């Protein structure tokens, strides 16, 4: 879902860059206050894992592929603000080093896959674990549902930005983006659930850090 340069107009670029810059500023302040000793290497590991996992495009229907975003996993393990920082690191490196996602579109990409995906995943995860119970089952179901919504909602915001930029009319781009990402979101949900299962089995204490 990395938007290249050229898809967005100047007003959308300026707005999304301003919002994302503000979001990163807030994240730096809040993460700086809350971050614990154990979470420093976890930030590095999550950024490295999300980068590597994003390279693994999996096929979805009709000659299309998708890859995980990873924001849901980061938000569940470290909270939404740390997830915004991790996603920003990944997206900035992808744009600067790997020419994946435009430089001017970086603000929009950080907004969609960083801010929207992290916060939606975090609060949906909270809601589902509250309903299903904070046990292994609740964690896995919550991870799947939160991850699916993070992809779906990020794609909706992406579609809105494309439509506001005049690249494609709302009526075309919104259902198209939502439809294909509803499928990609299933992959995100399964992979997020699998990694959370692995964390529960090996380092369940990492999931407890969030609650303190």
């Amino acid at each position: 879902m990395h938007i290249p340069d050229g898809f967005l107009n100047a007003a959308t670029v300026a707005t999304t860059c301003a919002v994302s810059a503000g979001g990163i500023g807030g994240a730096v302040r809040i993460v700086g206050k809350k971050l614990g000793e154990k979470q420093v290497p976890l930030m590095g590991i999550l950024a490295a894992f999300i980068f590597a996992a994003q390279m693994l495009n999996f096929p979805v229907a009709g000659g299309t592929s998708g890859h995980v975003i990873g924001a849901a996993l980061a938000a569940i393990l470290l909270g939404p603000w740390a997830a915004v920082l991790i996603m920003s690191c990944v997206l900035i490196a992808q744009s600067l080093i790997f020419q994946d996602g435009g430089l001017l579109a970086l603000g929009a990409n950080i907004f969609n896959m960083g801010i929207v995906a992290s916060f939606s995943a975090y609060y949906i995860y909270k809601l589902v674990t509250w309903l299903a119970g904070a046990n292994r089952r609740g964690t896995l179901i919550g991870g799947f549902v939160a991850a699916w919504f993070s992809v779906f909602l990020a794609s909706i915001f992406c579609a809105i930005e494309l439509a506001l930029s005049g690249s494609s009319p709302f009526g075309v781009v919104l259902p198209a983006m939502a439809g294909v990402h509803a499928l990609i979101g299933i992959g995100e949900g399964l992979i997020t659930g699998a990694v959370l299962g692995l964390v529960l089995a090996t380092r369940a204490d990492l999931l407890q850090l969030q609650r303190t």
Partner: protein
Amino acid sequence: MKSKWWLIALAICLVVACLAPLASSSPDGLERVAEDAGFIGLGQDAPYQVIADYVFPGIENEALATILAGIIGTLVLFGAAYGLAWLLKTRKRRTA
């Protein structure tokens, strides 16, 4: 051993990066929508290229070039996010 759990986790990340040549090369969700809706032509290439499209330049074997790009990116991101978190934590201690 427990304090070095992240070394094992980093090794897992590098293994994941080495699987990258197996990834699907079909267009992703956004590219597919842009093709179908006819605005893919609006896209502009970056003004410069470093390791464009996750293929390390100058290596004939594409799988190897992709793996190398993946390993570099994985290590860069581990270092960047670890470094950022460490900086934020040290700054907190100084101001506290």
